[in-house]
């Protein structure tokens, strides 16, 4: 049996949304930055059991610092959001709580994962100066370049979606 789930990646420009998807879907990474215009959609089928498969349709939206500017139709019917920020650029998480709150208000029944990407660029350990704190929920720290926590992020999300 195959079920389909829609996952939408959001966040500022250049935080690595496309790289995270590419790493997960094709296990590739490129340091050449190509800006996403509009929306790009990719699919990955994940085996849950021998008889059960989940088809993840992953919508990669163009980066924006204000989620109010996103075409609402792109967000409708989403099963899970992944909000990505860049751990090396504070501007990309300066309005993180505000955006997450808006998302929760608009889509109260939709799962949201917050991802701090590019941990490979971090000198030393995470501390209060170089990463934000959420009021509730946790942040998953990842690196699309090294693959750290990419598979884990989607595995965890898939499990939550089929429950």
């Amino acid at each position: 049996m195959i079920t389909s789930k829609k996952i939408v990646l959001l966040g500022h420009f250049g935080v690595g949304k496309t790289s995270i998807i590419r790493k997960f879907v094709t296990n590739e990474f490129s340091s050449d930055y190509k800006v996403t215009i509009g929306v790009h959609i990719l699919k990955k089928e994940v085996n849950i059991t021998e008889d059960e498969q989940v088809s993840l349709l992953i919508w990669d939206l163009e980066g924006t610092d204000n989620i109010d500017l996103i075409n609402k139709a792109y967000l409708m019917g989403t099963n899970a959001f992944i909000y990505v920020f860049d751990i090396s650029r504070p501007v990309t998480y300066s309005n993180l709580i505000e955006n997450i709150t808006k998302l929760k208000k608009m889509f109260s029944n939709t799962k949201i994962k917050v991802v701090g990407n590019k941990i490979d660029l971090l000198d030393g350990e995470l501390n209060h100066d170089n990463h934000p704190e959420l009021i509730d929920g946790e942040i998953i720290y990842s690196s699309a370049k090294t693959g750290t926590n990419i598979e884990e992020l989607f595995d965890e999300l898939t499990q939550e979606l089929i429950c």
Partner: protein
Amino acid sequence: MSDTRKINLLKELLLHEDRDDIALLQAKITELESIIERQEQLAARVNPIIDEKLEQYSADIPEKLGPTITKSLKNEIANSKDAVVDALYPIIGKMIKKYIQQEFKLLSDKINSQLQKSFSLKNWTRKFKSKVSGINEENFIIQELAKTEIQEIFIIEKNSGILKANFSKTNTIDKEVLSAMLTAIKSFVEDAFKTGNDSLESIEYGLYKIHIQNFNSYYFAVVVHGVFDSAYEAKLEYELLTFAEKNLAKGPQKNISIKLTEHFNNDNL
């Protein structure tokens, strides 16, 4: 009187007139040199002005002479239509001829291919119809080739773009991704024009047309090949409504793809 003095005296007497001529020539040469020098001086002063004017003139040609040239060309074309047609005809004619030849070749290949399938049931039926009706068999083949045909039908959830059911005659790209992309394009167009309740109803590419029919929570996207006129569109809309009424009252169910295939596989519109 010494010899030297005698010679000098003789020279004086013999070359007296030549000296005058030489003096005259020298005066003329000096005058010419002066004229040339003055001209060079003049050129040095005048040339930059002329260059500047010429440059300005060249820049002004489109503006100053453009309308005149256009008017002259229009008049010329109007007055000598035949000459213009004569000049262009061979070029355009060749292009059209080449295009028609290519299209006829394709049609001819398709007809030959149909005729070669001489043992198929379809072929025997066509031959029989041709005998009975008296219409040439090739005409029946041309009719078949120009026939409108449904290639794909998608039932897509409106909000998420998730594919709920599909009937397909081809194995093209991933249908789930295609459904999601169609939904994204549809959403983009509808959002971009913000015309209230209007929605995207069709997309055309080459000989294909994607007919979109909206329902409350889902929409149909039907890929059609061939002549898609308003009569065919009306029939298709009616069939989709009939199908939806029969099978989608509670939204798309799990076995809906099979029902979709059963309903539309025969191209019985």
